[in-house]
């Protein structure tokens, strides 16, 4: 009699995550979503100040070739106590560079639970879900949730205005010379 071949258990799907802190609060982000980690100081020479009405969480923009990366203050985005922010996560496939306090550690997530349906406000845009790690529940952020399409439109308009102002000032300087 032939025995049925033992069924191999399917490997548990895991995801590498980065645990980071914003204003003391712990969050997680998929490491695959983070294109670069930069010191906030390293951007200080290349950033342009920007001001979009009603959008206090973005104060600066960085030009990268033909792309503009908006620096989102993580603390202000989540409504936490504002902090300076020491590190920037440049988030892949977005126009967001997220200003955070620091990285806690790298880890592996084996299960992502959908955000319970009781959470029914903006947090549904902020988080992919929740994960339990070492008996602690950590929200896993959604990289595209930091800036909505409406916010990006506002920022683009503010950026255009800043460019026009800079160009006008430049012309004035040229004509004066």
């Amino acid at each position, binding site marked *: 009699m032939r025995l049925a071949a033992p069924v191999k258990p399917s490997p548990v799907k895991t995801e590498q995550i980065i645990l980071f802190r914003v204003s003391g609060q712990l969050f997680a982000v998929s490491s695959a979503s983070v294109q670069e980690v930069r010191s906030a100081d390293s951007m200080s020479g290349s950033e342009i100040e920007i001001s979009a009405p009603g959008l206090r969480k973005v104060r600066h923009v960085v030009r990268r070739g033909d792309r503009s990366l908006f620096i989102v203050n993580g603390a202000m985005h989540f*409504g936490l106590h504002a902090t300076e922010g020491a590190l920037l996560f440049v988030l892949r496939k977005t126009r967001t560079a997220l200003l955070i306090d620091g990285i806690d550690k790298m880890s592996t997530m084996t299960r992502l639970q959908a955000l319970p*349906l009781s959470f029914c*406000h903006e947090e549904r845009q*902020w988080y992919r879900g*929740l994960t339990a790690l070492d008996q602690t529940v950590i929200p896993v952020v959604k990289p595209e949730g930091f800036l909505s399409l409406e916010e990006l439109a506002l920022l683009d308009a503010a950026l255009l205005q800043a460019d026009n102002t800079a160009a006008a000032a430049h012309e004035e300087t040229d004509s004066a010379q």
Partner: protein
Amino acid sequence: MTVSAELELQSFVLLRLGERRFAVSANQIAELVAPSRVFRFPHRTPKLDGVILRRGRIVPVCDVSEMLVGKRLTSRRFYLIAVRNYGTQREWIAIPVTGECELINAEMTAAVESDAPHVGGWLSHDGDVIEVLNLDTLTPGPEQLRAQAATPHAAEALP
């Protein structure tokens, strides 16, 4: 007791919030658990305290005391884990309660139009008239968001 009278009796769990007692249909109750650590993270949904971990599940903690008794609970002795319907989906929610809960059989009087939306009916028990809670309207969910769509949200995140 006649058979017809027996059929009208339903099971309810009586819970205590401060000095007041409320009832929830026993069909909606999963368990009563001792307080455990509440994990908090930024969000903007009112009445949500955070989440607890229970049997590997992440369960939101819905504090309904302010709405029902006018103040937040200072002492929590248990969490009542109940089932909340969200359309076709069902999820667990944890409701902080101050006292031990009691299972009773009683006949429910249906709510009338003038009752608050969270009142699913009324019970008479031990000389008290007790509200039967409709958890689907009492606790936050997407349907309430749609109803509040015109209301501007708070600028600060909770908690």
